[in-house]
């Protein structure tokens, strides 16, 4: 599959760049966040934004193989959030 050229490809790459810039700003909440759950939520947002960036770049460069990476990343991101929120509570009554 060939890469998307022209305006649409530029728009997809620009959207990926904008989301990457916004994701870098979220690192402030990871560093600052008063409680640990603040940090976990910020890391969760960073992970889901990373999935979106990978999918947008896959569409812009015409590489369907990147989508498998994005899918696995989304699975691991969800498992990370659930596992951290389960094992930080005393008896783990989350699930």
């Amino acid at each position, binding site marked *: *599959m060939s890469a*998307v050229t022209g*305006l*649409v490809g530029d*728009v*997809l790459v*620009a*959207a990926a760049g*904008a*989301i990457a810039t*916004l*994701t870098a*700003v*979220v690192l*402030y*909440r990871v560093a600052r966040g008063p*409680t640990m*759950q*603040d940090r*976990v*939520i*910020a890391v*969760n*947002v960073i992970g*889901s*934004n990373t*999935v*979106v960036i990978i*999918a*947008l770049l*896959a*569409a*812009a460069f015409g590489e*369907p193989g990147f*989508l*498998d990476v*994005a*899918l696995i990343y*989304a*699975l691991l*991101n*969800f498992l990370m*959030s*659930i596992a*951290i*929120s*389960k094992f*930080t*509570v*005393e008896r783990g*009554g*989350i*699930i």
Partner: protein
Amino acid sequence: MTPTEIAVVALAAGGVFFTLVAVVGLLRLPDLYTRAHAASKSDTLGAVLALGAAALSFGAGVPTVKIVLLLLFMFITNPTAAHAITRAAYDQGIEPWTADEEGER
């Protein structure tokens, strides 16, 4: 421009806008629970719109099916993860922010 290109550009712009709203909420809101609100709703909508743009630009085929499955997965699991984290915070005894304690954010 074809209608598909217009739809891709509009969806990508909407995705970036709602991600911006989520990031502003994550940085500016006063409390863990309000931040989780911003992260779960705005960020999920932004991710869904941006993934819709990627799916439309691939055209018909197997990659589009993969992106739509990814979209549905994120649409379900992103609020679920935020809910689990928030419930863990509540079980640990973190008090919600109220309007009484001004000046602290």
